[in-house]
């Protein structure tokens, strides 16, 4: 892909200080704010997780009371999903999509500013709910009825926070769809688009389709709580299981919302460090689209234990297994891209290969959960906890780190410190597995999730997992050091910061000037 880029080095103009950040409509500023926000939320959610692990270090109750423990697990999930992972990907989209498709900014710059600035108030509502009478909601991140219909006012705050974050996501998604569809540089056809843009385009459609359904579900909880409706209230003729159906209609596409952009990032990085074009570009696009479409037909695999008829169980079991096929295509293509490539393992590539390895393990445990008779055994045990942390931490989060190390030169103009980056990777990788691998055994042995105390035979694996968790948490501080060092200085990054990186983003100088592609480049 060759491009003609007018070299523009406009500085920033307009308000300064706090007002600059409050009023900015620049996609790079907004992308940066998204990432800082999500990293702060990542650390907050991490503190909750470490409190959970401290309590679970030994059997019995030492650190927190059961009621508070339930608030911790609930808020950890909500903060990580809606505060850390999702905004981080939106931040990447804001920064990179215009640069990758040769657009000067996002389609609706003002709306972009709103999408971001809705998030901090939502986060304040969510975290503030710890301090209201009764504390934060303790119904689990899935907010199952009837518990969520009964909780105190912390639940109402969580519902409002979800509404606000949902609106923010929908606005962000609309912006991305319009930008990708209408703002591409001349010659950049859809099938020439970098895979990160493709995965985000499809993710954005998923967001527009399912975030409103979540908003509807929590609105029903709200009206059940305060306005006398009985959607989920059995005493009034409602059905609590109905909530699970509606929630997972959102929930399963949501897990793909959190992983598809990660697939995109990895698909950018692997070819760069294998020095080969991506193997099977078109099949990657089709695989992404089929994952997205299939994700609407598998929601009840989260509900195998609710007494579904056998025909339903079989349908959802096979449909779920079907999703593993396009996912497998992707893994195959990444490996085939590396096959006989001139591989080097700089930090971004380390994270990306680590991602493939560990994410695939999470995919396999997902397949095991998808087998209805097995899932009835492991549902709501630590086995499921292990599964979704393998796909979300080692999947989404590792891909985010891979992307951050990959594009930091473009963002800051300096190369990130290689040895610290590698240390960060290896510590994360080792401690991640120490934390979550034993959870497979705990789950198979029957340890239930979301319980502050456990039977004595689970003690050793739990102690091990807690040690790993603290190691993992501390390892993340290395990332702060790397980023701060990288902003302050370091080896100057060239426009094409990695030897064989392809794409329009590498044709603009590093750091990317405030305004890029004011004059659209021509892609041949």
């Amino acid at each position: 892909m060759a491009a003609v880029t007018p070299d523009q080095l406009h500085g920033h103009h307009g308000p300064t200080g706090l007002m600059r950040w409050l009023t900015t409509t620049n996609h790079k500023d907004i992308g940066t704010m998204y990432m800082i926000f999500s990293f702060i939320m990542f650390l907050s959610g991490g503190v909750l997780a470490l409190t959970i692990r401290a309590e679970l270090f030994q059997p019995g109750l030492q650190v927190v009371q059961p009621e508070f423990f339930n608030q911790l697990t609930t808020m950890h999930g909500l903060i990580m999903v809606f505060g850390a992972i999702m905004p981080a990907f939106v931040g990447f989209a804001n920064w990179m999509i215009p640069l990758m498709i040769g657009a000067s900014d996002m389609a609706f710059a003002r709306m972009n500013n709103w999408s971001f600035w809705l998030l901090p108030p939502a986060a304040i509502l969510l975290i503030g709910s710890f301090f209201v009478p009764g504390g934060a909601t303790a119904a689990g991140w899935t907010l199952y009825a009837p518990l969520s219909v009964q909780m105190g006012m912390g639940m109402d705050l969580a519902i409002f926070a979800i509404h606000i974050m949902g609106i923010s996501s929908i606005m962000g998604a609309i912006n991305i769809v319009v930008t990708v569809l209408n703002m591409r540089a001349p010659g950049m056809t859809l099938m020439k688009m970098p895979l990160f843009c493709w995965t985000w385009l499809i993710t954005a459609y998923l967001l527009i389709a399912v975030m409103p359904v979540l908003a509807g579900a929590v609105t029903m909880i709200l009206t059940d709580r305060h306005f006398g409706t009985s959607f989920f209230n059995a005493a009034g003729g409602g059905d609590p299981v109905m909530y699970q159906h509606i929630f997972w209609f959102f929930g399963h596409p949501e897990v793909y919302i959190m992983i598809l952009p990660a697939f995109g990032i990895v698909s950018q990085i692997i070819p760069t460090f294998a020095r080969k074009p991506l193997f099977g570009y078109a099949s990657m696009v089709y695989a992404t689209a089929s994952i997205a479409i299939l994700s609407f037909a598998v929601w009840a695999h989260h509900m195998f234990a609710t007494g579904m008829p056998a025909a339903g169980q079989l349908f959802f079991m096979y449909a779920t297994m079907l999703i593993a096929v396009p996912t497998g295509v992707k893994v195959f293509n990444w490996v085939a891209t590396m096959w006989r490539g001139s591989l080097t393992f700089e930090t971004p590539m380390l994270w990306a290969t680590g991602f493939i390895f560990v994410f695939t393990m999470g995919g396999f445990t997902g397949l095991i959960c998808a087998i209805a008779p097995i899932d009835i055994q492991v549902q709501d045990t630590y086995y499921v906890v292990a599964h979704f942390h393998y796909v979300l931490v080692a999947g989404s989060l590792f891909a985010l780190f891979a992307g951050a190390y990959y594009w930091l030169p473009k963002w800051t103009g300096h190369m990130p410190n290689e040895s610290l980056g590698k240390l960060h990777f290896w510590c994360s990788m080792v401690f991640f597995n120490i934390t979550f691998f034993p959870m497979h055994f705990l789950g198979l042995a029957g340890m239930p999730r979301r319980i502050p105390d456990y039977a004595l035979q689970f003690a050793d694996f739990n102690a091990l997992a807690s040690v790993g968790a603290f190691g993992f948490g501390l390892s993340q501080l290395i990332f702060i050091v790397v980023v701060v060092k990288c902003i302050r200085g370091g080896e100057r990054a060239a426009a094409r910061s990695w030897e064989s990186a392809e794409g329009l983003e590498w044709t603009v100088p590093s750091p990317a000037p405030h305004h890029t592609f004011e004059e659209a480049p021509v892609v041949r």
Partner: protein
Amino acid sequence: MNTRTADHLASANRRLLVRLAISAAVMFGFGFLLVPFYEKICEVTGINNFLRPEAEAGARAATNTQVDTSRTILVQFDANLHDLPWRFQPVQRSVNVHPGELVHIEYEVSNTRAEPITGQAVPSYGPQLAGQYFRKLDCFCFAQQTLAPGERRIMPVVFVVDPALPADVSTITLSYTFFELKGRKFAASGQGARS
């Protein structure tokens, strides 16, 4: 980019924005639509009809695998009064049941006097050994019964005959005797016997 194409792009963007925003609004409505939709599915397929159990009757009903259909026991019902001015009789004289089957029968009692009276029924079985195989899940004999003047009452007995009932027993007689409790209105000080 000249202004004409810029204007063109801006209006194309706006059109797409409106369309996507409408899709989001429609999906919000769709979330609510899922409620009647799922209800309809459950109704059509007969899943989850816990509000109308009669719809589950027939082949779809959960079958009790503990029922021993190879045997039929005749259960006869008897009612006696011990010095009590009441009328007391079973609604049905006898039923044929399979061991393991859940059976629901009723007794009728009425107070012929112009004053409230408290009584308690005590069951007995013939043959006597059948008693230990006769599992009552609910019985009016579990509690004292206070009847207002002239009151008539239908009272349930829900029971299962244990499949372990010895093979030579083919008829069981369940007999209740109502005793008046001493002190009449002071039910708490009563000495009603219980089986």
